[in-house]
């Protein structure tokens, strides 16, 4: 086996086994901190040993065994100067998990990392570290936050899990829907930060984050195949990700959905997204009300079904937004609905609907960008320019700022 092959085997083992190693060690030793450190040491050992010894036949089992030894070493070391409390863990060693329960093991880890008693930013950092296996510097780079800040968030979260005794388990049936939606919120936040990266000097689309969010959502989908909102979120991410390369032009400017070269969309991702949406439609037809991610995915399925923007079934889009508004009457949903309404009832009707949202959305760049576009279509250039100015001031994404600036400068 060549050096490159071994390196690839280690990368693959990291991608596929990290969460399982951390999860099974957390279960065995009851401590996320020990699990994380031991898992990291086991992978470091693999990097040293596998090139000489060869890749073990079952990398996952090798890593778990090696990590367990590292954890026991650490506990023994600490016990020499600490109390005997931790020794108890070694004595009450759980029997080894049956293989079939390993899926559940990672689920426990996900639910613990996304616990509602933790701050959202801590949940994000903890999930990316413990479940996705990203390093602290990688997470810091992805969110443009200092490494020490990410390190502190993770340390504090682990301390709270321990002190407040946040349980390491899949929540009870009555808590499950709310807790799943909490996990999905974390994943969608990671995805959106990748999709609409903010901050000057950053890439407008952070593919590392969108890819990581999709990978984690696929994992949850595999663990909870019956959950409609998990399927919905995965479909939504796939259908957005499919348009990634079309969304930013060669000069780094945002390309709107209407102007995108649809030939560059990723057909495989769209097909997978559509399959998931169809699966959920079949369940909805049987009477199960779809949640917000499923409806958002369906809206994106309508867009990605049109070969040309003129073929878009806008009445279907508006109908889906109506459904979404009933579920989530937020002003941002109402704003997006108005964009679709403009295509059916014209920009004047849409503008009236948008203007009603002023009080709630006055600080939101997309509100001003939408107004600017509708005013432009109505030939009200002066007002449009003012709205573009405000949108540019508020937009954080570099591609979006470039697009808005060009549209403003093209006004007559």
């Amino acid at each position, binding site marked *: 086996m060549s050096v490159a092959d071994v390196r690839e085997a280690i990368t693959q083992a990291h991608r596929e086994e990290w969460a399982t190693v951390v999860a099974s060690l957390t279960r065995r030793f009851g401590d996320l901190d020990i699990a994380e450190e031991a898992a990291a040491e086991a992978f470091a050992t693999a990097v040293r040993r596998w090139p000489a010894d060869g890749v073990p036949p079952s990398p996952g089992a090798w890593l778990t065994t090696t990590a367990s030894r590292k954890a026991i070493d650490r506990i023994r070391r600490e016990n020499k100067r600490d109390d005997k409390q931790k020794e108890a863990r070694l004595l009450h060693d759980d029997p080894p998990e049956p293989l079939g329960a390993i899926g559940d093991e990672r689920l426990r880890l996900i639910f613990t990392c996304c*616990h*509602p*008693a933790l701050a959202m930013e801590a949940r994000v950092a903890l999930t990316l570290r413990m479940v996705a296996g990203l390093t602290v510097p990688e997470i810091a780079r992805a969110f443009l936050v200092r490494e020490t800040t990410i390190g502190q968030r993770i340390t504090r979260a682990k301390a709270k899990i321990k*002190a*407040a*005794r*946040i*349980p390491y388990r899949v*929540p*009870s049936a009555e*808590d499950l829907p709310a807790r799943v939606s909490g996990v999905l919120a974390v994943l969608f936040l990671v995805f959106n930060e990748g999709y609409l990266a903010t901050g000057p000097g950053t890439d407008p689309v952070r593919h590392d984050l969108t890819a990581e969010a999709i990978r984690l959502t696929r994992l949850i989908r595999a663990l909870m195949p019956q959950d409609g909102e998990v399927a919905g979120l995965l479909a939504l991410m796939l259908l957005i990700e499919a348009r990634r390369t079309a969304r930013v032009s060669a000069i780094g400017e945002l390309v709107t959905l209407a102007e995108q070269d649809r030939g560059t969309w990723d057909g495989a991702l769209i097909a997978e997204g559509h399959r998931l949406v169809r699966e959920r439609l079949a369940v909805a037809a049987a009477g199960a009300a779809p949640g917000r991610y499923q409806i958002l995915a369906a809206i994106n399925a309508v867009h990605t079904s049109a070969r040309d923007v003129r073929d878009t079934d806008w009445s279907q889009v508006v109908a889906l937004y109506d459904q979404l508004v009933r579920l989530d009457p937020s002003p941002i949903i109402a704003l997006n609905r108005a964009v679709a309404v403009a295509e059916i009832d014209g920009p004047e009707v849409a503008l009236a609907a948008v203007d009603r949202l002023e009080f709630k959305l006055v600080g939101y760049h997309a509100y001003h960008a939408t107004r600017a576009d509708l005013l432009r279509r109505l030939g009200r250039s002066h007002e449009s320019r003012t709205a573009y100015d405000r949108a540019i001031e508020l937009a954080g994404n570099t591609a979006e700022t470039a697009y808005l600036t060009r549209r403003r400068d093209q006004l007559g």
Partner: protein
Amino acid sequence: MQYLVSVIDDTAGSANPEEMAAISAFNVRLKAEGHWVFAGGLAAPSSATVIDNRGEEARFTDGPFVESKEYLAGLWVMDAADLDEALRLAAEASKHCNRKIEVRPFL
């Protein structure tokens, strides 16, 4: 595992009769289910006295140790298996006493 379940208030009123009744019924249940350790309501923060006897002689100061708009109005000490159980109980407590609640683990 024991948790301090604090009742946070920002109005200067004790529980009204309806709230008192709901709290009493909740307490009966907490006892029946083995979660009850202690519970009590507190008089207004203005009735507090702060004592500092770290120096030569004890010093007494009128009023609470920290002045704030929100204050501790009462508390439970509950036994719960873990934070999930404590949060579920606290969510019910908040409903019954009609106030915000803070949950904090004992060491």
